[in-house]
């Protein structure tokens, strides 16, 4: 039986990806943020998960508003690195896991999550920023297979906070019903507070971000009970994407322990990282 061994949260801002490509891990203004990845990199290196389910959003790169899916699961064995308008990042194609992904597709649809199934899905910064930060030695390929699930957080109505939490719970059931002796982590991405449009551009709320991080550990049910409007008011319209972290948290058991948290928000966005470990985690 496959098992979930941990959950990780990360922002996905393209500026972080650019820093990584420039080798800017120690750049003074961003050192507090980039150092936040080190314990996560060490944990992943020690535990070597076979696969990572990546909860992310596409930024109108692989999907356009002509036909826009609410949840889209990739079953591809490989994902191209997208050109978002500035040339593609110098990253190798992102290896998937078709067997796990097709299993998830069946299990989730049977669990009443009717996803769009994608066989050719280039990945943009929503996916590439977190994985290139978690696995910094990616030049020759990715050590862990990535199974991306894209969530609509851009065109309203977006799925409710509780729906994301339930997606995580369904993902746990789905993984645990996969008859393979494999280890899986779940990645929640985006946020935290920020707004990138309108006169409210630049809105941040560090108090709310810290409250979110605390409740994510101690009372995720409270976060699932909030409305989309609450997330927009407290964390900005684009920051409302932080509900994607609820899918990561929903996939964890009550026994998961928080090992690490970090926060740094000096510019447009309140950036945070978090690492949860399951009792099922063993050093590989």
């Amino acid at each position: 039986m496959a098992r979930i061994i941990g959950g990780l949260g990360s922002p996905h801002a393209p500026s972080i990806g650019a820093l990584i490509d420039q080798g800017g891990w120690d750049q003074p203004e961003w050192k507090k943020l980039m150092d936040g990845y080190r314990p996560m990199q060490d944990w992943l290196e020690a535990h070597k998960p076979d696969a990572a389910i990546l909860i992310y959003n596409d930024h109108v790169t692989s999907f356009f508003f002509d036909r826009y899916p609410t949840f889209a699961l990739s079953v591809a064995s490989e994902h191209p690195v997208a050109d978002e308008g500035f040339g593609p990042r110098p990253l190798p194609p992102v290896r998937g896991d078709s067997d796990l992904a097709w299993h998830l597709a069946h299990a989730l649809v049977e669990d009443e999550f009717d996803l769009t199934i994608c066989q050719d899905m280039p990945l943009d910064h929503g996916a590439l920023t977190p994985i290139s930060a978690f696995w910094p030695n990616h030049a020759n390929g990715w050590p862990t297979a990535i199974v991306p699930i894209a969530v609509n957080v851009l065109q309203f109505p977006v799925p409710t906070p509780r729906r994301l939490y339930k997606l995580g719970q369904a993902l746990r059931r789905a993984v645990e019903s996969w008859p393979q002796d494999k280890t899986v982590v779940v990645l929640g991405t985006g946020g935290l507070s920020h707004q990138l449009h309108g006169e409210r551009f630049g809105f941040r709320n560090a108090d709310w971000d810290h409250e979110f991080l605390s409740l994510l550990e101690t009372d995720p049910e409270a976060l699932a009970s909030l409305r989309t409007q609450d997330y927009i008011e407290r964390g900005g319209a684009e920051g409302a994407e932080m509900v994607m972290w609820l899918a990561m948290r929903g996939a964890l058991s009550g026994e998961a322990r928080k090992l690490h948290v970090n926060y740094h928000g000096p510019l447009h966005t309140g950036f945070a990282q978090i690492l949860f470990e399951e009792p099922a985690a063993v050093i590989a």
Partner: protein
Amino acid sequence: MVRQIDPERLPAGTYLNTGQAANRALRVNRLCYDLKEPANRAAFEADPEALMARYDLEPEDRQLIRDRDWLGLVQRGANVFPLLRLSQLCGDGLAGTGAQMRGETLEQYLATRQAKGS
């Protein structure tokens, strides 16, 4: 049923991508979306009017693009993520695009932040 959004009580300066504004903005969004193709970026730089003609934009949208009026485009329904392809092609980075939407200069906006640059 709990309603997730109160359209009348959104924070000031927030324009949700939904409803008739989203329908109206489809063609502007498509132009911006297609800028992920290098050939379209080159076409815009060579002759923006010709590229806009291909997308059958309304006169108001064409004028907003000529004016580099990012706030106006967002208020007409354009989504910020494809729009950033256009604004950055026109030389406004994320911070510069945002500063304009706030009604500030780039320097004024960055002065409100702890870190410089973007």
